[in-house]
């Protein structure tokens, strides 16, 4: 739910791996499967990074419309990669960028020097559903 984001205390980036899952909405079995899939895939990043972008196309958070502990863990594994991206990566990583920016401004307290800066003026072609 959209209003969930306002109810959480921001977590420090260093604490996200030990985030308390009980603070989040309980997951469905489908979401649990997706969660374990992403915990595995994210440990092998940058492999599967395109799949992360694809998965976030129609979801605001990693597992759906509400944040979960998995968001935080995968966030901490994605951010270091994203900091190296240039505007040439924007089109193919747009959904990851949106998700990272939402998280670093709502759920996770990121130190200023490792914060991602999004250039909102970068124009990318519209995506067409295949």
């Amino acid at each position: 739910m959209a209003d969930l984001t306002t109810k959480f205390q921001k977590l420090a980036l260093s604490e996200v791996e030990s985030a308390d899952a009980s603070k989040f909405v309980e997951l469905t079995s489908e979401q649990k499967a997706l969660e374990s899939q992403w915990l595995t895939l994210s440990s092998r990043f940058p492999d599967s990074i395109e799949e992360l972008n694809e998965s976030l196309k129609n979801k605001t958070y990693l597992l759906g419309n509400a944040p979960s502990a998995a968001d935080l863990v995968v966030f901490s594994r994605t951010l270091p990669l994203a900091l190296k991206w240039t505007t040439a990566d924007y089109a193919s990583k747009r959904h990851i960028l949106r998700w990272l920016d939402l998280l670093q401004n709502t759920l996770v307290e990121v130190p200023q020097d490792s914060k991602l800066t999004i250039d909102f003026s970068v124009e990318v072609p519209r995506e067409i559903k295949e």
Partner: protein
Amino acid sequence: MSYTLAIAAKAPVVAYPALIAAAFVNTTSDASVSIDFIDEKEVDGSASKLTKGEETFKGDAVLEKLAADFPESLKEFTESKQWIEFGQSELSVKDFKKLSLSLEKLDAHLNYRAFILGYQVTLADIAAWGSIRGNAVMTSVIRNQTYINISRWFSFLETDKRFGGVLSLFTEAIAEVRKQAKANQAASGKKKETHKA
């Protein structure tokens, strides 16, 4: 001070933004806006009417008044103004050719954004979402994910009880009003028959 919002359910463009705004006021402030669903094309010549004590507000003034009185519930009024206007003049049109240009704009805006402004629901989201929800042409556009970012944003907000939930309440309330009206009609018809006999 108590507020009452009357919504005309058969208006050509139903005042969903005002309805959702009222739901936000009710869930995030101490005030309460009671909502009346009127099964007519207009209430006093407008799609919506807000009553606060002796004062009444209609049309655009409804959202403005609620935003002015509840800035904590309906955030970023000044920044949202252009989106309220965008919703009314561009997202409510039925001509798909014209509509598609506006949708491209919104879709592009949502490329790196989960919300229209900043990182939380603001009046801009409420206005744009309400306008899209009220446009019958948009139902299949959202479902088919013709505009991927718009569909994601729309569905995300829909899971919030003040968006999707309030719309369900609205549908149920109107069905009830119609059922009641039908029952009343049938009862008065029966009476006439009895009278005749």
